[in-house]
Structures are given as structure tokens and as C-alpha cells.
């Protein structure tokens, strides 16, 4: 696999093997009856991270979050937060706060009372509570809404009240369950950046559960992809997208073209894969942990494929097809290319020229080509 540029370890503690994790989840399993909701998950999360747990419904991501908050006890395994074993520690004694998917704002209290609730439980002096509430209200830009009740607020305002309330006790770790799930698309995009900004200003460690991969990609410092209660992959957004470790991860994040192939050449510096589905050889410009004649999969993102009318040079990484369909999205177009084998490739092209009259169009025979590092070889 290609080496990625090394970035200073101080901003990415997960790349520093001697860094001490802030949250350490070791071999945690949670069973409901006979069903494994979370199966043997081990995960280290570092201070100041914005870690996203990404997965479909029933992947165990929310259960893992609830175990961190203390609402569920692990069946086995251990959770440590800031070096402290959390086994048997009640939710109200944990240095953790949570923002709920439904926001869970207390309907019989106004915004100020909602935010102050946690502070009152800590028996802070009244003046300090008032100061802190005012500070939080201005942080989430709701200064004029303190006296309103939750049902007098819009969805976006409620989301911000929930955030303010969960930050009120200055937790070292904030858990967010689908924080933007209930907002419409436009509001979600705005709020995403606000959330990151708040996280960076306060330096709180965030663990976010989401099923929205776009949200995870734009928010996270690292993503943990979950599937059937297990962690399928942990990595930075670029790792997850560009270097998926399995068919599941490649298919779960973004769109991907996946073909089956058989290894014909296995060298230290390159691999050649013959794919009947693709109708050509795939030349991979780096060594892969595989054996000759092994059947494996090769995945490539739609934007990594180039289209041309003339046949490019080379005996590999070129295949011929017919433009079957074009989806015009404005900024880019999605081409569906029908190959001779009957396999369809999805190719995206950025529309850099305005109203290009020379653009490749329907029913045109085209060549698809890609760089020898563009795809991922997957064995599982």
C-alpha cells in the first residue's frame, strides 16, 4: 500500500504509539438475550478528538455510546475514561455528558432552566449558574430565547439548546447521538461547521454516533465504521474513503465500483489482476498481500475513472464500454457505462467547461481508464 504523508503526531495522537488514550474501550461486548449488540470492540480515543461512530441501524453504534454514558453495562470488557475504570459507575457519577437524538429537552422547563439543570445538581451558587447559562446561550446564539419553552422553539433551536445543556457541566467527554439527524439538509450543513467550531473552541472530546456518512466525513478526525456490532475499520476520513480495508467498508462509504478478479502476477512492486467482469487486466502499482491465482476484489471510486473517446496507451487499466445513461448534477455528471461483460461502471466527471458541446453523450462508445494506484485491492 502506498505510504501516506506523515503529519506531526502532536495533532494526530493516534499516530503516536506512546500517546495515552483518553477513552479506552477494551474488548467490550454487550449481549441482549442471545443477540450480540456489540461484539468484542476495542477502541482508543484521544483527547480533543471528534470521533465518529458510523454504521447502519442495528450496527451497535448507539449501544456502544450508551455504554459510555452508563445507561448500559457491558456484558464483558472494560471502559476507561481519563484513566478511570467506569465499571459500575452510575450515569450521574460519570465525567461524561450526552446529547440525545430526540434532544430530550425537559418540556416543563424553559430554555434557561433546561441548561441550568445539571449545574443545579452540582449545587453551584446561583450567580455562577446564571453566568454560565448566559455564556452558553451566547455560545449557541440563543441569547433572546432563555425564557421560552422547548415547544416554542424550532428544530434547529432545540438542537442548540440540547447542545448547550450537554456542555453546561463542562464535561471532558461529550457523547452525541445523531446530533444533526432531525434537521433538514441545509440546516444540517450549517450546524455541522458550528459543531466543529464549538468543539475546537472548547477542546472537548466528542464522540458522535451517526448513520450519515457525509456527516461523519466532514466532522470527524477519525471514523469507526461499525457493522453487526463489530468495528469494521478505524481511520481518518481519507483512509476510510481511499483505503478501505474490506468490501463492506468500501461499499458503505460513498459509491464504488467493485469487480472480482484473479491474481495473475504477484510481485513485490506490482500486482496484475485479470478481471473477466471488467474485460481487462488491472495493473496495481504496489505490492499486495496475496497469492497467485487468488480470487479477490478490486474497488474503485467513480471519480477515479477517466473517460475518453480515443484508446489510451497501455495493455492494462483500460476497458471499453457504451454510455448507457448520464445523470447531470450540475457540478458533475454521473455516467453509467455498460461494459461488454454486462457489468455497469459508474463514472463521475466534473463539469469544468460550461455547457460543453463536446461532452461525451448517450450511446457513445468510450474507453474507461484509471491510474495504477486508483483502486483498492480487497481480500475480505
Amino acid at each position, binding site marked *: 500500500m502506498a505510504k501516506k504523508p506523515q503529519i506531526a503526531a502532536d495533532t494526530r495522537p493516534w499516530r503516536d504509539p506512546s500517546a495515552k488514550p483518553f477513552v479506552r474501550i477494551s474488548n467490550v461486548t454487550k449481549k441482549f438475550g442471545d443477540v450480540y449488540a456489540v461484539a468484542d470492540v476495542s477502541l482508543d480515543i484521544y483527547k480533543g478528538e471528534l470521533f465518529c461512530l458510523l454504521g447502519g441501524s442495528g450496527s451497535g453504534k448507539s449501544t456502544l455510546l450508551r455504554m459510555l454514558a452508563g445507561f448500559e453495562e457491558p456484558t464483558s470488557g472494560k471502559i476507561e475514561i481519563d484513566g478511570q475504570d467506569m465499571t459500575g459507575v452510575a450515569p450521574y457519577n460519570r465525567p461524561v455528558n450526552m446529547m440525545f437524538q430526540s434532544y*430530550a429537552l425537559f418540556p416543563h422547563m424553559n430554555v434557561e432552566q433546561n441548561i441550568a439543570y445539571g449545574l443545579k445538581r452540582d449545587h453551584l451558587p446561583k450567580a455562577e449558574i446564571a453566568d454560565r447559562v448566559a455564556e452558553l446561550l451566547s455560545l449557541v446564539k440563543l441569547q433572546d430565547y432563555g425564557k421560552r419553552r422547548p415547544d*416554542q422553539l424550532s428544530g434547529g433551536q432545540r438542537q442548540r439548546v440540547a447542545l448547550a445543556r450537554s456542555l453546561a*457541566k463542562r464535561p471532558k467527554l461529550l457523547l452525541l447521538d445523531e446530533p444533526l439527524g432531525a434537521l433538514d439538509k441545509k440546516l444540517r450543513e450549517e450546524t455541522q461547521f458550528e459543531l466543529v467550531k464549538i468543539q475546537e473552541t472548547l477542546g472537548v472530546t466528542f464522540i458522535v454516533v451517526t448513520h450519515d456518512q457525509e456527516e461523519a466525513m466532514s466532522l470527524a478526525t477519525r471514523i469507526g465504521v461499525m457493522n453487526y456490532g463489530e468495528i469494521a475499520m478505524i481511520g481518518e476520513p481519507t483512509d476510510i474513503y481511499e483505503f478501505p480495508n474490506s468490501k463492506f467498508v468500501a461499499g458503505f462509504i460513498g459509491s464504488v465500483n467493485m469487480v472480482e478478479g484473479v491474481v495473475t502476477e504477484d510481485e513485490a512492486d506490482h500486482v496484475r489482476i485479470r478481471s473477466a467482469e471488467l474485460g481487462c487486466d488491472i495493473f496495481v502499482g504496489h505490492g499486495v498481500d496475496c497469492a497467485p491465482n487468488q480470487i479477490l476484489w478490486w474497488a474503485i471510486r467513480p471519480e477515479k475513472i477517466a473517460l475518453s473517446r480515443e484508446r489510451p496507451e497501455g495493455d492494462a487499466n483500460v476497458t471499453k464500454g457504451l454510455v448507457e445513461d448520464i445523470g447531470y448534477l450540475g457540478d458533475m455528471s454521473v455516467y453509467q457505462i455498460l461494459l461488454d461483460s454486462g457489468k455497469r461502471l459508474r463514472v463521475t466527471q466534473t463539469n469544468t467547461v460550461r455547457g460543453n458541446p463536446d461532452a461525451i453523450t448517450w450511446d457513445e462508445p468510450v474507453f474507461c481508464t484509471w491510474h495504477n494506484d486508483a483502486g483498492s485491492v480487497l481480500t475480505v
Partner: protein
Amino acid sequence: MRRGWFLPTMAILGFVFLYAPIISLVVFSFNESKLVTVWSGFSTKWYGELFADPQMLGAAWLSLRIAAVSATIALVLGTLCAIALVRFRRFRGRTVLSGMVSAPLVMPDVITGLSLLLLFVGMESILGWPAGRGMLTIILAHSTFCMAYVCVVVQSRLADFDMSLEEAAMDLGATPARVFFDITLPIIAPALVSGWLLGFTLSLDDLVIASFVSGPGSSTLPMVIFSKVKLGVSPDVNALATIIIGIVALGVFAATIFQLRSRPKKARA
């Protein structure tokens, strides 16, 4: 669409059917005549007579006390029962409990009354408690069947209670007891109020069960009225009924206002 005459007419007929007897009762309570069915002029003398009748007043006071105490006992027990049924999804005897709790709702009063009487008599001879029958046994009996009503009302409110509200409070540092008093109780309060009122009304209204389990000197208001009416309806019963209707109407009105206030208000633009 043209407004039909059918629905309004039916609605009016319905209201007449429901309220005409009550209105006639209120009107005739101000009747001058001793005969209940003949109007001979306006007077408040039956109210005067009522307040001069110690038996009637004593029974009314007893009934109100019984209703208040048994509604309160039923409220506490019924709420606990509802919480157990809604919150603890699986426990030994859950099906039995949920079935048993709703049994008094469908059980004929005669059977409830008779079985309670047998129980009290049996307990007295074995345990020596409750000694004799009277106010205490009526309260016990009323609490039992009112509890079933409270449980049903509170259960439905708890069933659509968002559990994450309690978790959120716990997450913010509240112990389970605190969570109950700070969050759960205020939110289910409307159901508690209506449960209590329901229990109060049912207890005030009950004749059959009370007749079985009451003893000498502890006749409730319905029992006194019933025995009086057997000897011919006297107009002071009308006066008493009017006062009770007034109290009930006031109670319902207060409860409605309370519920409207605690209900989420619509967002103002």
C-alpha cells in the same frame, strides 16, 4: 358543502338526553312545593332544610372524607403499579399483575362488594383487624377498585413518556429519586390529577360496594339518599344533588384549566 340539519339536530338531541334530567333536577331544587313534580314557585327553603338535617350533612361529610382518602391511596398505589407495569418490561408475575389490576374495572360491583365483605369478616375473625365495619373498610374497598382506574390512566401516560428525558436528567447528575421528582412526576402530573379526580368521583358515587362493607353509623351519602328515596323523593335531595353537581363541575373546570396550562403551548410566531 351545505351544512346539513341532521348532525346539529342529533347533537342537540344528544345533549338534551344527557343534560335534561340534570337541569330539571337543578330547577326543581328551587321549587316551593313539597311535591317534587309540581312547580309552585321559586324558593330556597329546601337548601335551608338540607343544612338543618344532621343525618344528610354527616353522610355528605363522611362521603367526601372517604372519597378524598381513598382517591389519594389509590393514586399512590395505582401510580406505583403503572410504573411497574410500564417500566419493568419483564418480571415474574407481570401478566398476572396486569390482568388482576384491570379486573376490578369489569367486575360487577355486587361481586366486588360481597367478596370484600367476606374478606373483612374473615380478617376480623382471624387477625382481629379491621375491627367491625365502618369508614375504614369503605376506604379500603374504594381504594382497591379506584386503584385500577388510576393505574390505567397513568399507564397510558407513562407509555408515551420519552425515556430519554429521564436518562438526560440522570446524565446531568440527578440520582434516580431526583429524576422521579424533577422530571417524571411533573410530566405525568396531568394524568395523576385526572386519576385522582376519577377515583374521587367513583368513590363519592359508589352505593353498592359501600352498602356491603359499611357498618352501623357509617352510611355514606349515596346510601342515605337511596334509603330516603325509597320512602318517596323529598325535595331536599334535589338541593343536595344540585350542590354536588356544583362541586363536581367546579372540580372538572379546575382540572381542565390545570391541564390546559400544563399542556405544551403552541409556538408563537
